[in-house]
């Protein structure tokens, strides 16, 4: 019985790894070998696909563009969400519950609804095809996410700490930076991770708001897939490279992932 119990997660993980293995397998094959037929591992092991991505500017610029707007978005989202989350966790104010709910509706808003209006809005203010446009657009769902997660973490810090600090003569900004932020450091880390992640995985808005100068890697991939026919090896290698950043940082947040996905509420 004990043995059988361990089998379930094991089989599940095997199921999860199979498509990833297949992607890796494809990325080390030449295009000819891929189209030549079915094989479990590359007969003609090659790094050409990866070499092409790292030397061709249309490819590696895609990564640079993606990382740029993701970084801007993460910093922006966490910076504005910190005071807001503090306000929601410590104070009652006019319309607070409505505002909190309204934020959530934006996290749940389907990007498909916003694709066309976003295109027009960002063209009108002259930001189309810039990193800032994508970073700002992703704020639509990342700021609500950040506020909700941070509020969850902040509510776990007893209010007595705030009051003691004020009695000790701390001003609010000094208290917030010197005492409060270190207390919720893990919460800030997790929030930054989730902002990073959701900005990194989103494609529809990023693709709609860019054409050449700020084209993200995800858009480069879909356009390559449709224009140059069947360069599957290259596509697979690009796919593998997009998984790596997430795979590296995931170790640091492994105990908080559930909390982050539940918007700070587990």
């Amino acid at each position, binding site marked *: 019985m004990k043995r059988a119990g*361990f089998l379930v997660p094991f089989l*599940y993980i095997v199921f999860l790894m199979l498509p990833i293995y297949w992607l890796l397998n494809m990325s080390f094959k030449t295009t000819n070998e891929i189209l030549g037929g079915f094989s479990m591992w590359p007969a003609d092991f090659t790094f050409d696909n990866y070499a092409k991505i790292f030397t061709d500017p249309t490819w590696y610029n895609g990564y640079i563009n993606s990382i740029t707007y993701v970084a801007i978005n993460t910093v922006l989202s966490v910076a504005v969400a910190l005071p807001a989350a503090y306000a929601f966790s410590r*104070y009652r104010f006019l319309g607070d519950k409505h505002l909190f709910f309204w934020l959530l509706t934006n996290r749940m*808003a389907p990007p498909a609804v916003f*694709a066309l209006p976003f295109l027009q809005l960002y063209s009108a203010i002259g930001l189309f095809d810039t990193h800032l446009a994508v970073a700002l657009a992703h704020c639509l769902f990342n700021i609500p996410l950040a506020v909700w997660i941070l509020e969850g973490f902040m509510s776990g810090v007893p209010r007595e700490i705030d009051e003691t600090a004020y009695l000790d003569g701390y001003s609010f900004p000094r208290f917030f930076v010197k005492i409060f932020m270190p207390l919720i450091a893990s919460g800030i880390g997790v929030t930054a991770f989730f902002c990073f992640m959701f900005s990194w995985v989103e494609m529809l808005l990023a693709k709609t708001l860019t054409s050449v100068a700020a084209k993200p890697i995800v858009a480069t991939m879909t356009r390559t897939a449709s224009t140059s026919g069947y360069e*599957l090896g290259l596509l697979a290698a690009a796919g593998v490279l997009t998984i790596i950043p997430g795979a590296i940082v995931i170790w640091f947040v*492994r105990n908080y992932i559930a909390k982050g996905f*539940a918007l700070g*509420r587990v």
Partner: protein
Amino acid sequence: MNKTWNNKAWFMVLPVLLLVAFNAVIPLMTVVNYSVQETFGNNLFFFEGVKWFREVLHSERFHDSLLRQFFFTGTILAIEIPLGVIIALAMPRSGIWVPVCLVLMALPLLVPWNVVGAMWNIFALPDIGLMGYSINALGIDFNFTRQPVSAWFTVIVMDVWHWTSLVVLLAYAGLRSIPDAYYQAARIDSASRWAVFRYIQLPKMKRVLTIAVLLRFMDSFMIYTEPFVLTGGGPGNTTTILSIDLVKAALGEFNLGIAAAMSIIYFLMTLLVCWVFYSAMMRGEDE
């Protein structure tokens, strides 16, 4: 927790409010605007009232994609929730394997959505993909680019692959919050495995499972990129769910009125579910 009443807290919320409102209110008003107007190009618009709404609500195309959407959402919920709970129950509760399991299971959640689509496309190709090839080798005719059933099967397995881990992680977090004393008490009472699940584990997981169901429900309503990259809504229109249909109408055909009216109906539906989600969360917090 009792909070102090302080309207100055508004100033702390202001930056968030401005940034999100810029992204949410202006586009939403654009959509509302389009949904009540007709255009013949040249930026000339005139008021049409509820014509588009009536047209959308009576169009067979909308009914079909809505129906497909509900079929998709219902199927993935019916698979992912029980499967996630079973896996969470079978996970070791402590030891070196726990972090390894957690990290490996969380991996699909961090794959960019279009890569998920591309990956499954390659994986399911009937001649060179592992899954497509294996299924065909078993003697079942499988080709997701031509057969509606195969396409649906692939889309659903892809979503199960992508999001079941979310349910596992949430359910596991709920299970870990159960103190050992509960299990010891159950052992003293010589409770059956089922009784432990029904009267200890399930009640403790109730809250996280509510969150999981609602999150999966809402996210499956928003899903666009993965099925779009995998099947493009095809073969024909058979896997064209709501969001794919919407983007087709708006960016593909520039049918602004129709697309806008669809957007608003779509948005109102998510808003409703969102409200249920919010109430459930807040009730959980008050307890």
